[in-house]
């Protein structure tokens, strides 16, 4: 990995963030919401509205508004919430930390379950275990989060009163309660992620199993156990980083629904509330934070992959 490659990759990330900025600003501009009206309420006088508009710079040309907004956003200032009157960015970051806890738990479960299952299914290709796991994986990727969430709640909270159906407890306050409240949301995300990662790992492992170097290892007289551990699993594990980084994109979308259903005060729920109340600064901050998180994860994944996989030669 050369410095030039790293520089190009970072530049690409910056470009991504700029494009996302433009998009988020453009979409929120088009929102049928008058910031001044939202602030002052339905009964505000025309004079008061005009004054607020002038103060917020709403009469400036769009590009100037964008320049103001982007320069403030660059230092993490997204303005104050129209709903609560509090600064948006700190609130959103607190929400993000709760979401990240959920996401991290889900990724750990996924790696611990999905990766081994995928490799196992590939090694037993065509047998019953493979067929069953593949069918379950199909079901997993074909269920929207709200269906999985609802069915899981029905089983583990309604029929079997084991877990709380909604709510959030900080792990700093009560670890046991926090785990209980996180269990169903994590399970829900994991069903989909495990199914997806499992399918990718299975096909990856099958490709490695059919490679010439695995055949060569067998024909060297190595026992099957060593062939599998040293030659198959090792190579099949390489793309895990890329797969997981891609799934972060899904996760960010998925938590919007999941936090809504389980009433978790994370960034997804905050965004959902912002969207329904047309709270422009909160929408902008939430969307930007999500996109930047995704861009960061992908860049990090590319860098880690480049460090691990020595085959990639960058010019």
């Amino acid at each position: 990995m050369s410095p030039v490659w790293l520089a190009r990759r970072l530049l690409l990330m910056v470009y991504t963030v700029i494009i996302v900025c433009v998009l988020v600003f453009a979409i929120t501009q088009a929102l049928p919401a008058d910031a001044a009206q939202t602030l002052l309420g339905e009964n505000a006088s025309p004079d008061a509205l005009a004054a607020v508009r002038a103060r917020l710079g709403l009469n400036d040309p769009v590009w100037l508004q964008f320049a103001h907004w982007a320069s403030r956003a660059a230092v993490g200032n997204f303005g104050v919430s129209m709903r609560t009157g509090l600064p948006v960015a700190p609130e959103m970051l607190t929400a993000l930390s709760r979401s990240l806890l959920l996401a991290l738990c889900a990724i750990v479960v996924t790696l611990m379950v999905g990766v081994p299952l995928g490799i196992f299914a590939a090694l037993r290709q065509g047998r019953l275990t493979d067929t069953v796991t593949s069918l379950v994986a199909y079901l997993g990727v074909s269920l929207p989060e709200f269906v999985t969430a609802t069915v899981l709640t029905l089983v583990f909270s309604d029929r079997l009163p084991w877990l709380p159906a909604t709510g959030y407890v900080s792990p700093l306050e009560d670890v046991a309660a926090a785990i209980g409240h996180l269990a169903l949301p994590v399970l829900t995300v994991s069903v989909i992620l495990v199914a997806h990662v499992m399918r990718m790992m299975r096909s990856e492992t099958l490709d490695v199993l059919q490679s010439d170097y695995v055949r060569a290892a067998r024909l060297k007289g190595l026992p099957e156990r060593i062939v599998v551990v040293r030659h198959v699993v090792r190579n099949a594990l390489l793309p895990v980083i890329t797969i997981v980084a891609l799934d972060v994109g899904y996760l960010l979308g998925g938590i919007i629904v999941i936090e809504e259903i389980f009433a978790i005060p994370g960034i997804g729920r905050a965004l959902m509330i912002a969207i329904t109340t047309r709270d422009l600064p909160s929408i902008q901050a939430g969307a930007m934070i999500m996109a930047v998180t995704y861009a960061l994860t992908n860049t990090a994944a590319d860098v880690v992959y480049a460090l691990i996989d020595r085959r990639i030669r960058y010019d």
Partner: protein
Amino acid sequence: MIELLGRLVRKPQGAIGVVLLVLLAFACLLGPWLAPYAPEKMDFLGRFRAPGWQNWFGADQFGRDVLSRLLVGARSTVPMALAATLIGSASGAVIGTTSAYLGGRADEFIMRTNDAIMAIPGLLMALLLVSTLGNGAGNAVIAIAVAFAPGMARVTRAVALAVRNQDYVKAAIARGEGPGWVILREMLPNAMAPIVIETTIRVSFAIMLFATLSFLGLGAQPPASEWGLMVADARQYMHQAPWVLIAPSAAIALAAIAFNLVGDGLRDALNPRDER
């Protein structure tokens, strides 16, 4: 075409997928006639009636027949997802093919921007667009189409680039064929198969996404018996009548599975691996 269908149904996965698709098509085309009751017909004596001979899939909080609502609701779910996918795929395909054909710096610029747009999660993009355009099924379709286009552009470009490097395309360029012939007659027919496969699989995502938007109250609006909406309605009664919840959930899952199975089946049927 018939040969392809034959290869598709030879494997059990493909056959199951095709059967499910045919059932879906029946529900969409003939739903209102197949339904035993009118979807809005209330029956207060039959509130939360369990599945049985009167209501095969049970009845909901107003005594409406769940099966009838599902059959009628197919129309407000599956065609919407199909439309969204087709619009998204078509625009993505145009962007991807153009990018591949232009090549060089234009290609790099288009694809980098495309990748940047993909940094916004699909559901978030759809949510933002729906809130801009306003709630409703039609707007949800547009939002999903826009959210799908960048991903489709990426896939199409990869396919188009691979085809462009084939010797028969080089031969056509070398003998002086115009861009119209090269794109339409030499490249496109050979790029179609992967695009069709990808589109089929994406329909299942569209079904889930559309149902999700409706579930969140942003897509189809009551009194439509859209499946996501039915799940949202049934959630509060899940304690009394889980069947009202399970039937539309299963319908969404089966529809998504159907398109997934057919898409994967098409992939196998179009790229037969060698027999070794």
